[in-house]
């Protein structure tokens, strides 16, 4: 055998996607219901008091943020669980004894997690389109942001899955860091609505750049420049890739 082990990539990817089909309620339907509830609570209850944000109805304004919220949490959850579960039940022995390169392992696990996230993002988008009037001014860039975010946070989830040695740790970072950052990252508001001091503080929140760029692709509205958003997303991607490369070089939590 030489070159890429395509059969292995297909096997792992298929195995992970089969898990999604088995857990359809948890993987797809549950996040869609949660998002629909956000629409009801924020769109109907709060949206009634904030009729428009920079010319966009509040219900539509929060769509990119809501998609991003689901994308981030589900990418992390899918990828971290995907690699953590074999560690937990012991089937990781098979992966580590197979003629599979680290690149192939990452491509298949992260690819499957990112695929699920993209599907989920599109399902939420379709759900939103049924509830609020939507327009997508830059569809290509919307897809680019969707893909980049899914891949980046699936890589991040993969790292968490390798690092975690218990289910508590698996939930720790998503619950304590990612969810608060997402809520405070302009998912439900424009940071221009904040007092100047908090606007500056918000710029240290990486999620601001993701939400801003993604929202720009919908409505042409952005809290920060699109190039900056794209650049920051690529920086996160590079950082997660570097950590994954280090994990496989050292065998951290895999062979030790």
């Amino acid at each position, binding site marked *: *055998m*030489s070159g890429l*082990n395509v*059969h*292995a990539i*297909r*096997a*792992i990817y*298929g*195995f992970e996607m*089969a*898990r999604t089909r*088995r857990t359809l309620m948890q993987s797809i339907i549950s996040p869609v219901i949660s998002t629909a509830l956000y629409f009801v609570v924020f769109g109907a209850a709060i949206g009634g008091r904030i009729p428009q944000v920079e010319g966009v109805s509040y219900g539509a304004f929060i769509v990119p943020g809501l998609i991003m919220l689901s994308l981030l949490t589900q990418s992390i959850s899918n990828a971290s669980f995907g690699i953590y579960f074999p560690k937990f*039940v*012991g*089937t990781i*022995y*098979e*992966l580590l*004894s*197979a*003629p*599979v*390169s680290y690149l192939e392992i990452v491509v298949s696990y992260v690819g499957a997690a990112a695929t699920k996230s993209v599907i989920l993002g599109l399902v939420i988008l379709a759900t939103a389109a049924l509830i609020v009037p939507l327009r997508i001014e830059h569809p290509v860039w919307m897809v680019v942001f969707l893909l980049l975010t899914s891949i980046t946070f699936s890589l991040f989830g993969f790292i968490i899955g390798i690092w975690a040695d218990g289910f508590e740790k698996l939930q720790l970072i998503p619950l304590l860091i990612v969810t608060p950052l997402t809520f405070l990252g302009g998912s439900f508001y424009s940071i221009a609505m904040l007092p100047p001091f908090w606007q500056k503080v918000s710029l240290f929140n990486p999620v601001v750049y993701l939400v801003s760029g993604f929202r720009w692709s919908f409505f042409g509205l952005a809290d920060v420049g699109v190039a900056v958003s794209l650049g920051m997303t690529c920086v996160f991607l590079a950082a997660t890739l570097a950590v994954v490369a280090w994990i496989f070089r*050292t*065998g951290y939590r895999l*062979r*030790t």
Partner: protein
Amino acid sequence: MNPSEGTIRVDGHDIVSEYRAARSLIGLVPQELTTDAFESVWNTVSFSRGLFGRSPDPAHIERVLKDLSLWDKRNNKVMTLSGGMKRRLLIAKALSHEPRILFLDEPTAGVDVELRQAMWNLVRRLKAEGVTIVLTTHYIDEAEEMADRVGVINKGELILVEDKASLVRKLGKKQLTLHLDHPLERVPEALAGYNLELVPGGADLVYTYDERGDRAGITALLQALPQAGVRFKDLQTRQTSLEDIFVTLVRRT
């Protein structure tokens, strides 16, 4: 585990620099029953084949599952299988990519007699097909029954690897036990030249001899016994088992 020093080659392939070629030759059956709970038997075995870089071959998977009496369970979730079936499933996964070397890590630990016999039949068949089998076991009789070569690991170190027959020849002893007509208090003086030992109670006399020696001395001993006034009603011989040799080796190190 990260390699520290030395090299390991599998059929000439270095396990680090040529890991793909080396690993694709190996099938591994772990001691623990580590399986996916929610996947079907068929899918989990097919997954293993793909993982090892082999294109799908439903006919081969079917053969393996039938050989291991898992065909009827092919659509069942792994979690519904019994312990013995899960053990066989692990073997099926290891055989899914047609390995040339099969590692069996204590495959019969805690399994029932019937399954144990079935596994040995499978091992014999694989061996006949030319598959090299590396079996780790605490049951020395299994090694004695199955192995061509035996390695002994003590405190993490391989202290010996040798052809089983030559190992038994080299380190084995034979013993002749004489069941006496009348118990003795001590070995008679006239028989002092023989390596005799009186079993406590005095009813049995044990003669230990080396079958590799030019002369085992049995004939001479049997002639000397009546002259020394010792009569026996029965006799039996016994060869040192691999287990005896193992215990001797481990105690020596």
